[in-house]
């Protein structure tokens, strides 16, 4: 690649690339090579495509794209220019796709998306319900381009914003545009990025850093990873624009070590952009200088907290530090230099704002939360994966329309947003519009955008225990409220879910939780009790049932309830007797029953019974039976 000496050279290069890349008259398979689809065999599909194309002597361009979102149904791929979407593609299906679509130009029905077995397949990607409601800004190029090829990014309009900024905007213009767009931090807290940038710009000192927080640690959330893997240049462009706006010269991308593909693709992207002169010294022939470096984290959740992240960049132990000084102030950033830290998704939104203007961005979403947000939709929902939706969409739309409803058409119970630090939202708020402020008003938060859907078979106490055990094990150990407080809360929850709950435990949890929120040093501790506090708020009766009745209505917690065999349903297969390790299931005159003196409530018989004749009941039921 030849280094671009000025902005016109970039324009000319793009003109050439626009013509040559993604030509409408060539056949193209855009195969998702995100981590999930790779795991389900995307590369095998690609190999088969190649060998099939060789066999039939067809010219087929294969583009290995980043995550296309519908991870549940991977490997997914798109055939262009017809824009036909295939899901769950197996290597043996490739020959049919080849025959039908690429040679014949008609869809191959068996590979298309269907809502269920009976419904009509949907050939076009834009018609798939999962994609229909989405509006992609941060993920705009995910699934469209090959992340390892900067030409693809340039061809779809990449670095246009940087080109615009360097040719016609002053740093203040860029900053004002971002400020006007009211872009709120996508990392969770929703602090306006424009204000943050202004702080950093106003800080004294010549050396400043731009830091991208890619330490995505929430279980189940992977939007940042998708951007870093699938569209690394949009992150680089966003960071360069930020650096231009605030007057920074150096950038760090802090990535989890567990994201090897992201690290690889980012490294490649930095190299390519440097070769083209889009980052580095004298960018596009101007005085603007910006170099980017990748820092790999060692897998501590707390390093996503800004001050701990700074400590980690410095090579210190990932302990949060006291604020003030904030990162944007002298003494706050790495080695004391003022810095601006934003989430990956935030930076990915910046080029769009700068290129299309703040008006475009403000028109999307709600007044206080403009733009879109990426959610990682998981849990008991039919379509799981990454969805990017405009702010203000309701939870119901996300879960039932995009997500396709609850798995097995069971009853919805709650949705957990904001990752392990977020809260659980019950059914009554299903029509809540999703934006930063409304989620906080119901005790949850936007967080990085994890969205875990729970059905009636989910025990809320167990959910609280799960999330708390995560934050507890990720507590860094610096301040006592978080270090000891969360472990105490977890102990109480363990007690409750194993049937040892005591009167007063709920109050103890609430009191301790509030003290931790008020007293902990960093955001991790401040939000760690949230799952417990919100589940107590909305599902207090479940806690009370666990403690008083020793009963788990979702039948998740072992050690609770009374196990009985419903004789009217039992067809005497004897599997329950075989399953019981304690000899509690007794056989008597063609009848199985459970000896309560021997039963340890291990749930073995419950899971063994093929027809669900083993019942778990409250204590009262047992006494009535006697």
């Amino acid at each position, binding site marked *: 690649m030849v280094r671009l000496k000025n902005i016109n050279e970039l324009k000319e290069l793009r003109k050439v690339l626009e013509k040559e890349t993604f030509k409408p008259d060539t056949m193209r398979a855009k195969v998702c090579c995100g981590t999930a689809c790779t795991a389900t065999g995307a590369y095998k599909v690609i190999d088969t495509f190649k060998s099939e194309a060789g066999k039939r002597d067809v010219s087929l361009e294969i583009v290995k794209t980043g995550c296309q979102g519908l991870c549940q149904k991977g490997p997914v791929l798109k055939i262009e220019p017809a824009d036909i979407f295939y899901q769950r593609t197996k290597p043996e299906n490739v020959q049919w796709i080849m025959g039908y679509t690429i040679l014949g130009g008609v869809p191959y029905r068996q590979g298309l998306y269907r809502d269920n077995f009976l419904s009509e397949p949907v050939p076009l990607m834009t018609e798939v319900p999962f994609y229909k409601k989405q509006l992609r800004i941060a993920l705009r190029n995910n699934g469209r381009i090959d992340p390892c090829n900067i030409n693809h990014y340039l061809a779809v309009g990449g670095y246009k914003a940087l080109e615009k900024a360097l040719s016609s905007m002053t740093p203040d213009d860029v900053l004002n545009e971002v400020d006007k767009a009211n872009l709120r931090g996508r990392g969770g807290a929703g602090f306006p990025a424009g204000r943050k940038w202004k702080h950093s710009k106003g800080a004294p000192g010549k050396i400043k850093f731009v830091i991208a927080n890619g330490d995505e640690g929430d279980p189940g959330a992977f939007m940042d990873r998708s951007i870093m893997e699938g569209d690394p240049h949009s992150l680089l462009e966003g960071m360069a624009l930020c650096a231009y706006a605030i007057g920074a010269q150096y950038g760090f991308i802090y990535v989890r070590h567990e994201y090897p593909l992201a690290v690889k693709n980012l490294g490649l992207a930095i190299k390519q952009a440097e070769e083209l002169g889009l980052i580095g010294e004298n960018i596009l022939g101007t005085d603007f200088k910006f170099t980017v470096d990748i820092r790999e984290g060692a897998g*501590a959740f707390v390093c996503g907290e800004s001050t701990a992240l700074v400590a980690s960049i410095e090579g210190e*132990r990932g*302990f949060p*530090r*006291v*604020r*003030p000084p904030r990162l944007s102030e002298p003494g706050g950033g790495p080695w004391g230099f003022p810095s601006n830290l934003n989430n990956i998704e935030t930076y990915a939104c910046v080029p769009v704002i700068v290129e299309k203007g703040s008006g475009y961005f403000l028109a999307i979403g709600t007044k206080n939360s403009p733009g879109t947000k990426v959610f990682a939709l998981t849990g008991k929902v039919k379509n799981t994966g990454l969805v990017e939706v405009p702010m203000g969409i309701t939870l119901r739309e996300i879960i039932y329309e995009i997500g396709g409803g609850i798995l097995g058409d069971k009853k919805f119970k709650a949705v957990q947003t904001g990752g392990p630090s977020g809260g659980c939202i019950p059914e009554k708020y299903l029509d809540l519009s999703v934006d930063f402020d409304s989620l906080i008003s119901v005790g949850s938060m936007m967080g990085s955008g994890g969205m875990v859907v729970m059905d009636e078979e989910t025990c809320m106490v167990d959910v609280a225990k799960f999330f708390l055990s995560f934050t*507890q*094990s*990720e*507590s*860094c*150990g*610096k*301040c*006592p*409220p978080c*270090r*000891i*407080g969360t*472990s*105490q809360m977890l*102990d109480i929850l363990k007690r409750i879910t194993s049937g040892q709950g005591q009167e007063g435990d709920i109050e*103890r949890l609430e009191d*301790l939780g509030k*003290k931790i929120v*008020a*007293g*902990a*040093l960093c955001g991790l501790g401040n939000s760690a009790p949230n799952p417990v506090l919100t589940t107590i708020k909305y599902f207090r009766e479940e806690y009370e049932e666990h403690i008083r009745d020793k009963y788990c209505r979702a039948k998740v917690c072992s050690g609770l309830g009374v196990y009985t065999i419903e004789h009217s349903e039992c067809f005497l297969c004897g599997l329950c007797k075989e399953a019981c390790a304690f000899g509690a299931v007794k056989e008597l005159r063609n009848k199985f029953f459970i000896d309560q003196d021997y039963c340890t409530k291990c749930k073995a018989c419950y899971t063994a019974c093929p027809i669900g004749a083993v019942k778990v009941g409250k204590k009262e039921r047992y006494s009535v039976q006697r």
Partner: protein
Amino acid sequence: MVTLTIDGKTIEVEEGTTILEAALKNGIRIPNLCYDRRLKPYGACRLCVVEVEGQPRLFASCSSPVTAGMAVKTDTPKLRKARQTVLELMLVHHPLDCPLCDKAGECDLQDFAYDYGKPEARFIRHRKKAPPDVRGPLVELTANRCILCGKCVRLCDEHQGRGALGFIGRGFPTVVQPAFGEILECDYCGQCIDACPTGALLSKPYKFKARPWFLEEKDTICPFCGCGCTLTLGIRDGEILRSRGVEGIGQSKGNLCGRGRFGFDYIYSKNRLKTPLIRITPRNSSKLGVKSLELKDKFQSQDSSLNPHPSSFFREASWTEALNYISENLRSISEQHGPSSIGAIGPHRCTNEDNHMLQKFMKNIIGSNNIDSSAAFGYAVVEKAWETAFGQKRHSINLTSPLDKEAILIVESDLTVTHPVFGLNILQAQREGSKIIVADSRETKLTRHSSQQLGIKPGTGIALLNGIMKIIMDQGLFNKETISGIAGFSALQTLLNDYTPEKVCRITGLTEAELTAASETYARAKSRMISLTISASENTKGMDTVLAAANLILLLGDDPGSLQIPAEYSNSFGAYHLLNGSNGLNNSSTGKDIFEMLYNPDSIRALYIMGEDPALNFPDTSSIINKLTSLDFLVVQDIALTETAKLAHVVLPASSWAEKDGTFTNAEGLIQQLQKVIDAAEQPLPDWRILKDLALSMGKDTGIRNIEDITKAITSSFILHPSSFNSQPCFSPINYSPAEKSDTYPMALILRDILQHSGSMSSRSKSLDLVASEAILEINEEDAKKLGIADNSHVKVSSSRTSVYLKARVSDEIPEGAVFVSLHFPHAKINTLTSHSNGMPSITMVKIEAVK
């Protein structure tokens, strides 16, 4: 200035102060466990939370800066509840083993739990499963008691520059441990013990000795180096059990090194003298014609191998007998050979009062001016050079001087070892942004914290200084205004013409880029300082090095105070000023100096040595021992039976530093009061008392009745006026002369102090001996490989004089071609290898052989 109110009290503090500091300064107590004024705010313990009016959240006062008009409340029901919860949580895992914890009674956690605690516990108890780590020699680590305030970790890393402790693990199981959970190997300063708010870090020597509330605490001055830190000694039943630093007290503001904290127990060493001893030999009686002493049946037999007179013995004697015996002998020598055949040597460890008394005794009672102190090998050299270069008397030292300097140049010294508290200030300056340029041949703590390390060859400091001056001269960075008024500039120019960067780099082994960078950094800095140490226990520097450094100071037109060479021991400064044969005499003739007395076989016939051990501490001990054994009469007055005392005719037991009143003058010239904290066991007397009694037994009255008389006499004479001697500053061009090389003796033997010891006195401390108990020869890995020396094996070290056997440690901190050893330990006899050089640097060349 910012005005705010705390608990209704209006307070004015500087901008940038934290709420906690503002409160503490104004006597308002906010509970805290992780705050330390020496460290950066940490904000971990969450006890110091306060309420600020109009703000819903709680503020951690240790890390929140004050703002104007802020109204802070430090004690409200809400805060009490928050603190209560934090303490309740801490006590969930902190074991309640206070009955057998040494900290109980002065434990912060205990105190706060008492203040805020509530009787019922809501939570399940949890302990860490970490057994106490008792493997280290002086510090015991009990992770179960640790509340992870991180003070020890930060103090060790940020403040001491050592970083021996760290956090291991994450979340609840986090523990404070040395790296990889190995045995704690550190500086053994014990600062972590003082800082620990619980009993997680404890002093091992003090363990289970006494409950703190039974201890009587008395402040006195540390007997080791010249920093003059204040020790707070804990005494029970007349025995010193521990020593600690109290925050903000004394010259060191509560910082102590390992010597001050653990080394005080040298006064309880086995070979402390209890009664006067008189040697009985045939020679005694025949030569001096003294009436033959009746041999009692009670002999004190000495180790015959160490005894130069195998046929003689020491006999215990009473004070009267011993003093009469001395006075008789001294009188007869004085009568036969005149008073000037008697000399005296004073120490840098005794009080000003003792030294004054010795001076007075020699001059008034004996009538001899032959008096000098051991400071002649160290501090006197500095003073002499100072006078020559700057034309002023009294070297002005300020231990806090590094703090405001932009560049600090350190020449072949490790001040963190010799003057630990001064070293701490250098480290602090480095943290605050000073550039520290360390020229040293070996790796030290200072080189590790330096901004630029110049790995020069040993003993080439003068060449380096000349090279720096040459570059400054060539680049015109010197001060053109002041230079004209200083004599000798042209001579310096001529000399420097010879020190081209190429030549200097050839001598020192640096690259030209390194040399130029260092010179420019130093010369271009707005404020500068050069620091080094001069002492008898080091042999790479001397008067010439000081003069070369002074030339650099003059060349840049800096204040003489930019040259900081602190006096080496607790009272070197006082000893130099009080015991100087040519200073403040009532008799105009100049007496013989220490070199004359110790190395010239015919100089004197009798010697009175007070508190010094020339047979061990000074170079070329074989000549000294020859001289001492050939004396007609040798009196040694010391606290223990030293190498010199073993040669004496009479040994007098003296009180140790803790057993007497008096004053020490620290390196800064500050006279500090010493307190008698315990009574001496058995018969030892303060040195001044012995001399007063001796004068009486010689039939003369010194006019001194008690210690106050001496203190008065000193204060009237001792206050020195810097203006009393004032001549013009001048350059003294110094040429670098390399150590003679020979094929037989290829290695340079470099003497360096080690951190755990100070002189030979501390080698009697049991605690310090646990860490370093023998002289170890450090040798480079490559050299060791060549010579077939394994780590921890024995080697034979030979100079042209003699050879000694030492244990070797193979180290990568040592440059090739040199070996390092310390002088502290009597058994090593290192000084038998060295030669005496009259205050000039003198590296002894040696040969090392592996012992098979």
